[in-house]
């Protein structure tokens, strides 16, 4: 952190404004009848330097699409993404490529995200060389050290991905992301494909590396307990929008949005009397046909007339606690 910045006001490293990503489905033989799939529909949030912001939501809510849109792996339909003051959506290709050094990504599928025809060493080496992280004659040593940093053996350098377990592969992905000395890492369901015991190892590794390298994480997951474990702040997504955003403790102790309340009420308690369970009606509406007004009103147990008419804005209801609900 620079000397100039006031430590009480955290510095924004990433700012997402009104981010939208629509997909189009064509219906019928003649292409003029097209449907919009609003996967990400107007998202606003900031990530502060050094924190872990968890994004949680059920599958299909658009969290992965959002992660990819932030990294410009899928061009956003609208909105802006600012990383350290640089607007990414309008950045030229070669500048964007250079900037990717600072903001890396770890993917969900540890079996799909590594090239089956490349050795671990070759894979790490190429990113290190592309971004000129170290001198070319030091690359091998550097990569081997990186492997040790994530808990792998140096000898794995010349092995192929299929020789490893899921957890080891995810460590390789982490090493690859880390090898270019990024400032921020987007973890897209980084532990979801792993066994619970391996999940814990990887989460602990991520936390250790964060401290060691001063990283910032945007941690996308569908798993509330994982998000709770690793995040400083948590944002909840529903049907392509953020419905609640708060400090982790605040979020889990005092949720404001009925969706988050319902989710938390579903977690079984061990040492307390059972709390009242909020059971949601029906299923998540299709992103092809998003309900008018508040998009949660079709399932909300507290819905009133206004909910089906007026869209609730994401407002700061308490200090640092934002929610998009008329009655929160």
């Amino acid at each position, binding site marked *: 952190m620079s000397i100039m910045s006031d430590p009480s006001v955290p510095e924004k490293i990433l700012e997402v404004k009104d981010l939208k990503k629509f997909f189009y489905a064509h219906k019928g033989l003649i292409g003029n009848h097209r449907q919009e799939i609003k996967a990400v529909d107007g998202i606003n949030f900031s990530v502060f330097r050094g924190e872990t912001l968890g994004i949680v939501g059920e599958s299909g809510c658009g969290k992965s699409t959002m992660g*990819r849109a932030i*990294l410009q*792996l899928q061009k956003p339909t609208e909105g802006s993404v600012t990383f350290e003051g640089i607007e990414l959506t309008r950045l030229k290709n070669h500048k964007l*490529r*250079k*900037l*990717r*050094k600072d903001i*890396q*990504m770890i*993917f*969900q*599928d540890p079996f*799909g*995200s*590594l*090239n*089956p*025809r*490349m050795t671990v060493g070759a894979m790490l080496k*190429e*990113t290190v060389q*592309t*971004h000129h992280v170290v001198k070319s004659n030091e690359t091998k040593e550097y990569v081997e050290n990186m492997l040790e940093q994530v808990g792998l053996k140096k000898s794995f350098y010349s092995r*192929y991905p*299929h020789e490893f377990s899921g957890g080891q592969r995810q460590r390789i*992905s982490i090493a*690859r*992301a880390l090898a*270019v000395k990024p400032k921020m890492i987007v973890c897209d369901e980084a532990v979801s494909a792993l066994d619970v015991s391996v999940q814990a190892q990887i989460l602990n590794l991520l936390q250790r590396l964060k401290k060691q390298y001063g990283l910032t994480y945007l941690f996308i997951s569908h798993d509330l307990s994982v998000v709770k474990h690793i995040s400083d702040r948590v944002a909840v997504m529903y049907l392509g929008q953020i419905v609640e955003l708060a400090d982790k403790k605040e979020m889990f102790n005092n949720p404001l949005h009925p969706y988050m309340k319902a989710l938390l009420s579903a977690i079984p308690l061990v040492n307390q009397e059972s709390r009242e369970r909020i059971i949601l009606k029906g299923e998540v509406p299709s992103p092809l046909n998003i309900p008018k007004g508040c998009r949660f009103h079709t399932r909300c147990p507290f819905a009133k007339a206004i909910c089906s008419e007026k869209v609730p804005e994401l407002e700061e209801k308490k200090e640092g606690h934002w929610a998009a609900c008329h009655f929160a």
Partner: protein
Amino acid sequence: MEQPQLKAGPITFSKPSKKVVSRRSSKILKHKLALMGGIFVAVLILLAVFAPLIAPYSPIRQSYAEALKPPSSAHWFGTDTLGRDLFSRIIFGAQVSLKAGLISVGLALLIGVPLGMISGYFRGLWDDLIIMRVTDAMLAFPSLILALTLAAVLGPSLNHAMIAIGLVFTPNFIRLVRGEVLAQREREYVTAAKASGLKNVHIMIRHIFPNILGPIIVQATLNVAAAIIAEASLSYLGLGTQLPTPSWGAMLAEGQGYLQQAPWISIFPGLFIFVAVISINVFGDGIRDWLDPKIK
């Protein structure tokens, strides 16, 4: 129905099941086949290169006294209508046929693979749409007619025939490679490579290409065979190898009228085409497996 009884007793480790054994032995068999294919290809290439040293007679020396002689100790594969030694002609013919097969497919690969990769990877209007429409137009033509037209326009010679065959085979590779790239580009390792900031060209060459090499090799080996036949057809029509230079295809065609009286004229060149094609295919299959780190 009788239930299988579980008996108490010492645990014994049975031998690997038959299925495992057969799978393992089929792998070794495949390995041996590939090796044999490789040896055959090598032998054919050596025959072609050292043809003047190996062939007992000149391939174009005619002798009416010895016309249509069946295989004997003097003429191992017999003689043709003009009394030329078929064994010598086949050895010299290997030069033409292997060259025609390998060079025309090489040309098709050289043009087809990059175009297919660009088309599949970028999927833009100019690259994908136009490349694919031209490809479709070429595929819509009967390939031999197209090769014939091209060879006729370029003028009759072996080199021109190879160019014509190469161009006619190019769309096959464009289509195949495009399809394979389309499948690979959606794989997460490609997204991961993009996310780590690699250049598109680098991703295409270092990441996607090794993953689509298998089908390309299979297609290429099959097309070498087809190219040998295509060269034969063009030569038969007078647009390929010029007489009296021997090529397997042309010899096969020459024997056509004498299948009753002197079947050896066609049988031996046919046999060599067959062996060459099979060996190249099997060898190609072996290379593909050898390149796959999972099978190795």
